[in-house]
């Protein structure tokens, strides 16, 4: 816009604007947030694309993620090494997918990843149980948890392998009217 900033080149900002759901201002603001997570680690000058990652523990200390029961899985799903270390690109990507204007298909892909605790591309019974326990803070009794998992798999499983593939998951998502608004983090 009008301000002269030296964090990114114009080309970089354009690229970010085209590839994510953020505007230039928001990208700069995100960089500020990223920087304040680890000020001595993150350089202020990103023009030569430094290879800097922030560990999981620092990312989940952000107020937007701090109380979320799925915070670890969210960060792991967007990290390249799978261990939760986010580069700035990953950071922006994460909030872009979780932003308001991201389309349903994209969100469904990442939601599936988040709920897939053992990363085997299926939502099996153990994944569901872990999800439920995180959702309810372990308030349900084990029998109730088992029952809920069985019923959920029974409802959503289309190919009959007693676990949910991405196709099953996506099919279920299309029937949920408020998925887009709940799978959304405001930053």
């Amino acid at each position: 816009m009008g301000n002269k900033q030296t964090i990114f080149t114009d080309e970089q900002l354009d690229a970010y604007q085209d590839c994510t759901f953020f505007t230039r201002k928001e990208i700069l603001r995100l960089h500020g947030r990223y920087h304040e997570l680890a000020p001595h680690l993150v350089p202020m000058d990103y023009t030569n694309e430094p290879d800097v990652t922030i560990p999981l523990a620092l990312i989940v200390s952000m107020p937007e993620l701090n109380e979320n029961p799925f915070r670890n899985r969210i960060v792991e799903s967007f990290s390249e090494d799978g261990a939760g270390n986010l580069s700035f690109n990953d950071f922006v990507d994460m909030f872009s997918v979780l932003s308001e204007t991201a389309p349903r298909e994209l969100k469904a892909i990442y939601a599936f990843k988040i709920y897939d605790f053992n990363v085997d591309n299926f939502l099996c019974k153990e994944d569901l149980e872990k999800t439920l326990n995180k959702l309810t803070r372990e308030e349900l009794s084990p029998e109730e948890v088992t029952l809920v998992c069985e019923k959920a798999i029974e409802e959503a499983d289309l190919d009959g392998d007693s676990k949910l593939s991405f196709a099953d998951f996506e099919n279920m998502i299309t029937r949920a009217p408020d998925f887009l608004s709940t799978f959304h983090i405001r930053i």
Partner: protein
Amino acid sequence: MAYSVDFNLRPIMELELESLRGDDTAQDSMTGTGLESGSRETLEMEVLTTESRDRLASQMSDVRERADERSEESIQTNLLVRKRWSTTTLRVLSSMPSRSIGQQSRLEIISQCNIRSTQLRRYHRQTQDVSLSSRPSIRGYGIEADSEDVCEEETKRQELVNNLQSLSAGDRVRMLRATPLSLAEKTKLRKLVFSDKVGQSLLSSQVPCCSLLKRALYHIWFGCLFILSSLQLWQVALKRLGGRFGTGVLSYFLFIRTLLLFNVFLFLINGLFLVLPQAIHPPLHTPSSHRVTGLELFTGTGYLSNSLMFYGYYTNSTINTSCRPDEITAGTGCGTTSDPHMMAYNIPLAYCFTIGITFFITGIVLVYSMSKSFGRSFRVFKSQGNMAIKVFCSWDFKVSKKMSVRMQSENITTQLKELLSEVKGGEEEKGRLSGMAVHLLAWSISLGSTFFCALGIHCFAKYMHLNSTLRRHEDAEGEVSVVHEARLLALPGVVSCGNLLLPGLFNLVSWMENFNSPIVRLYVSIFRNLLLKVSILGVLCYHWLGKIAAEPEQHGLQCWESFVGQELYRFLLVDFIFTVLYTVFGEFLWKRFSQGVLRRRRKPVFDIARNVLELIYGQTLTWLGLLFTPLLPAVQILKLLLLFHMKKSSLLVNCQASRKLWRASQMSTLFISLLCFPSFLGPSCL
């Protein structure tokens, strides 16, 4: 979003990939490709509009033909891809194993090409970590490609890039944004695709004013919605109650809120058109010397009887906006109109119209909300696939405060338990023939007690009115004693006692009946309470309108409407007082009793049926009284506000969620329809 709609190849690819990972031979054939979960998602990038998709598909199929292995399948693939199958057909085809197996390697290669070529160029450090990492592309791929493959990949990539270039700019951007690749990948792709436009964002050249405006409006709109939703009354408290006690109890409190809104509406309209003009131009008449005792507030007599509260106060003529209103009291003929130059406000007409219109609008709103909640409850009732949706889509990721997160957790837990109980309840239907006799007994007890109660009230009311007539004849000089005033409270007191005790009896009876499902028990309870209230109100109406209105002079009344208004006012107040007493002593003491004496470990459960019918009864009285007492909605508003907070505290302290949670999806419907039919139509017919 046109781009997101018709990607026909996707289901094929996804299914292949799933079967692919278990298929070792296919893996080997792909020159050491590390099969990633992400590779499937790279295929997502081919979300194109129909024409470009076909073009791409045809190119892909060209490539396939070049491969040596499985040429037969390639022909099949071509067939599959070139014809314009509909999405559903493709889905069905993709689920047939014979069709899908052959295509894996082909399409896999192409997608891999597109990705690996980039990393071959840039990344020297290659982790051989082929583990199922989270991110698609970049570091997870094993890179053992030889130069031949590289060339092939390069060409493929170039083709893909060309395809992207052939799309319109908006589509390109949308496609880029929607692909589940990592950001670095996307940036590189973008650089290649849009190399002719380097240095310029695609969007910046195309952002016209109107889209900026749209964005601004969007933000404003969401801001407004947010403010509106935060203004909703008692939002936080309701969330807490719903989370802890279930949707049944929540529906009761929602009902209180609904009633409150109705009454506020009534009060505003009446106040604006009726009370305010009259208050500004009070009628001049000799004020009788009443002793001001505190009892006036309860009985509505004394100085209140000649105030704005009651019908008798309102002038039976037109008010002029000049200084001298006519002052003829009710009961005599109409006053004269005055100078036509001044604005005339016809009070009787205003009275009729205002009240008529409020009734009309209330009726419309009631019917509308009833139909809406019927529709909603049917939809909820029909969709059976709720459990999975509740597990995966109900957590709101926006919530970040600790308390809110805990509340949300509680809410979801309760909802899941309710859903579970519905599932289980549907499976435990048992027939009980032996209970028939018990049911008959229970019904006869409840109906009999209702009948006797009504009869008792009828006799008592007759006695009271007879007595008051006699007494009026006795002290004809107009001196009223405090005792006499207090006697006026006797009838309301008796009625409220009946209202209090009989639901307890009904509870006992239904405990004896021992229903299996809590919903049936609730409905039966509601029905019995409803019968009780209807019969009591019927008797009272008969008395007021049948006896008193017909012969007011016999009862020594100057203005029967005022008297009825006062009666209703008294009823409302006494009812409220008894409710308070019951809540404080009844629920609290019962809890102590049950925990101390009966040694039950659980606190008592909130009795929804009784409380809801109390509310409906109160609202019926208000509607009945509206004609005679325009300010009655104000009393009702105060009462509801106090009731809400009182019941809430009592609930939190004394009660506990019932063991069998059930979903109250049709509760609000039921309450509103109960409100509408007996309660509203009754007074409106008068």
